[in-house]
């Protein structure tokens, strides 16, 4: 049985089409994927992302512990600052990607992928030293993302926290509709906006308030479908597509969150060795030069020889052509390189282009 978020009844009221994702019953779309995508890009969209997991790590040695656990340098962030990072296996593959929020010097709030929540929690817990507490606090939080250029004025109606003061990848602990909330200027769409973590049962009231206040800004609820096409246009990685156990962050283009110059962390040895022996593939952005749409798993070829594979592909609702994120041989990763994607035994010409595919105009 798939789990239901606190907002399940809201989705049903809004005629969301429910599907199972990562063990959760989630809305894949409401008014239509293209419409929701467009609304988020031009106005503002509201997303239930309560399926995402949250793990709280606290205690005197929690900072040093996390810094041994993840690839980014957690010492670089201050109180109320968030950091995107990867957590690796010893072999260098990805356990998951995460956002770490530093609530205080000895208190960290970590957002993880829905389908990885249990695995991540076990992994963190099993590596934690004495004196560090690790809690899976996922059941306590409803997470709502409000994304798009009108996000700030809508959310501001319900909080005293001055949102204009929160910079990208910073957050505040405040109140929304008088409920305790973590308000982070983060997101998975490429738009300005916020992800808020509020008490589980306050979810429906806050969701409805944001929907009502958002009406004059043209807000629409957005499902997982739009969430996926929005992130694909930004080339944001998704676990199970661009990163997973057998894929390492360096080849996934996440070298910017892998600090090989910091003291030992899990996976460092393997990643250093990989870098020294030379990376073999690159994660690139492809645009279709034909009409066919590239999809996950399709083979990338040059002159009939396989040189890669598509990890995510869709018709870009904004650009109106097919786009793909793909691993290709490293010597073929230059912008402008022409490659074929094999679509049902037909070779469809594609070109490596700059990413993100979409850049917001404000």
């Amino acid at each position, binding site marked *: 049985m798939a789990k239901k978020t606190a907002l399940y009844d809201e989705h049903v009221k809004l005629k969301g089409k429910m599907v199972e994702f990562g063990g959760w019953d989630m809305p*894949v*779309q409401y008014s*239509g*994927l*293209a419409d929701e*995508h467009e609304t988020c890009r031009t106005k503002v969209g509201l997303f239930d992302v309560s399926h995402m997991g949250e793990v709280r790590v606290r205690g005197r040695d929690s900072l040093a512990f996390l810094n041994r656990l993840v690839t980014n340098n957690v010492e670089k962030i201050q109180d109320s600052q968030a950091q995107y990072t990867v957590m690796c296996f010893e072999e260098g593959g990805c356990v998951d990607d995460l956002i770490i929020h530093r609530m205080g010097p000895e208190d960290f709030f970590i957002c993880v992928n829905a389908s990885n929540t249990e695995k991540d929690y076990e992994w963190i817990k099993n590596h934690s030293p004495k004196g560090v507490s690790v809690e899976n606090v996922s059941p306590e939080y409803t997470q709502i993302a409000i994304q798009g250029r009108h996000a700030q004025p809508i959310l501001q109606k319900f909080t005293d926290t001055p949102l204009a003061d929160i910079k990208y990848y910073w957050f505040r602990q405040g109140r929304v509709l008088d409920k305790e909330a973590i308000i982070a200027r983060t997101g998975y769409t490429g738009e300005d906006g916020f992800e808020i973590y509020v008490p589980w049962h306050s979810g429906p009231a806050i969701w409805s308030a944001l929907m009502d206040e958002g009406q004059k800004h043209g807000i629409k609820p957005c499902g997982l*479908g739009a969430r*996926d*096409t929005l992130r694909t246009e930004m080339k944001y990685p998704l676990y199970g597509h661009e990163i997973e156990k057998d894929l390492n962050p360096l080849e996934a283009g996440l070298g910017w969150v892998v600090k090989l110059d910091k003291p030992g962390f899990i996976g460092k040895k393997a990643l250093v060795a990989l870098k020294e022996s030379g990376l073999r593939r690159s994660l690139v952005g492809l645009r279709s030069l034909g*009409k*066919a*749409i590239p*999809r996950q798993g399709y083979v990338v070829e040059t002159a009939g020889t396989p040189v890669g594979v598509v990890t995510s592909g*869709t*018709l870009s*609702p904004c650009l109106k052509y097919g786009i793909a994120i793909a691993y290709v041989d490293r010597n073929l990763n230059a912008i402008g390189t022409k490659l074929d994607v094999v679509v*049902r035994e037909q070779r469809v010409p594609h070109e490596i282009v700059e990413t993100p595919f979409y850049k917001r105009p404000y």
Partner: protein
Amino acid sequence: MEFPNGLLYTKDHEWAQPGADDTVTIGITDHAQEALGEVVYVELPKIGRELKEHETFGVVESIKAVSDLFSPVAGKVIDTNSAVTGEPGLVNSSAYKDGWLIRVKLANKDALKSLMDAQKYTSFVQDLK
């Protein structure tokens, strides 16, 4: 949702409309187009291709999903709808008319007997819910 009388239906949610000279016109049902969402790409076979019953003859794609098209009958493709490859949204807006996909010359007239009529298909769809 509408399932017109006079059309025949499959469990894969295709419809077939018998015409003159043992030909049938084939498309996807209202139920199928609604489940898919906005259709953004349609791929159809070459004219002249011989199809077996239940053989994949093309795809319809929404932004997120690819769905195979299965031929309700065996026969030879004698026409394809070029309007729908140019404007895939016709599958949504006019599933039984402008959104038709292919026309097939039947290999065997009796093949139609195994398809469902509108009434049977309606209860088949209701049972899926």
